[in-house]
């Protein structure tokens, strides 16, 4: 796993997002161990509290869980749940925004549907 960070959102949220990406990509299959907060902290020169906060976001959603004395593991069904979550985010982040912009540009519903079809064909 390779992480990169920007200033736009808090680092702990970016950590959670990038672990999610790795789970979705199959890099961390269900019931396998993910890097520890210490590993993430030392590797990416991040305060451990930040790394822990990112991990806890995923624990709260049941994506990963703690095995006592062993570390953090990917939960059963995590990838499927993440896919659902990302799908609903896709609607908010891309579909809604795209329609807003289309309205500003006076693109009709039919024109937008046509554009999407063209996008698939290209």
């Amino acid at each position, binding site marked *: 796993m390779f992480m990169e*960070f920007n*200033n*736009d959102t*808090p680092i702990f949220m970016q950590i959670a997002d990038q672990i999610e990406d790795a789970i979705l990509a199959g890099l961390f299959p269900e019931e396998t161990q993910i890097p520890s907060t210490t590993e993430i*902290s*030392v590797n990416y*020169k*991040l*305060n451990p509290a*930040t790394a822990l906060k990112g991990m806890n976001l995923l624990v709260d959603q049941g994506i990963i869980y703690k095995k006592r004395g062993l570390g953090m593991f990917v939960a059963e069904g995590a990838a499927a749940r993440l896919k659902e979550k990302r799908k609903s985010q896709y609607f908010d982040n891309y579909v809604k925004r795209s329609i807003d912009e289309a309205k500003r540009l006076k693109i009709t519903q039919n024109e937008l549907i046509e554009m999407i079809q063209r996008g698939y064909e290209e």
Partner: protein
Amino acid sequence: MNGIQVKNCTKNYGDVRALNDVSLLFEPGKIYGLLGRNGAGKTTLLNLITNRIFADSGEVMVDGRSNKADNALRNLYMMSEKNYYPENMKIRDVFRWSKEFYPAFDMDYANSLADQFGLKTDKRIKALSTGYASIAKIIVALSVNADYVLLDEPVLGLDANHREMFYRLLLENYSERPKTFVISTHLIEEAANVIEDIVIIKNGQILRSQPCEQLLYEAYTVSGLATAVDEYGKNKHVFSEDIVGGLKSAYIMGTPDAEEARHKGLELSKPDLQKLFIRLTNE
């Protein structure tokens, strides 16, 4: 453990007020960034905590006891920017003497750090470059196993590789044996993600003392046509501006109004810690 508590400390050097009624708390087990421009009072504050200089008024408590009490400083170590070791002393003797004063000094760890940094312990203090003098002091600071470690400009003269190594070793050390680190540095960008809480000192006073993340997310920039930026900035807390031609960037405290910004054709972004620091501490 209660941390280091600085209570209403004032320090004058002649007519100059180096610290003005400073109060703050360094909690146990946290990494702090102590930021300020040259002459802001960072070193004065650190020297005052370690009882190397005396406040004109106010007091410093370490774990609930005055820093002037016997043994109060045994759990506290300060790495100074200046070199206070005898010039002719060899590094290995610096380690040996450090163990005399700090019995928990970990000699094996110190030697392994020296190896990793490529510091030869049979060298004398006076033979070291600025960077290696810093490295020698960093090694002692990481090896003493004190609960409170104050680092005044630890990365002075270190090349980029050694600076990265320093932050990695510091975080490893912190993970294995949690302690309070107070890091004073001018290289803010590199330290920004390592520190948990930030203390900004300006003209001898505490300007900010809060979680780093909190500070970063209470400020933002808005840029675009100067007239539109001015319009947007009305009734908002604008604390700094850049103007280039008819374009303007404003630094604002608070939550951005994305709707209004989009409506006015303005762009919102987040400043990094260094940019924010410069804006907050400019005269």
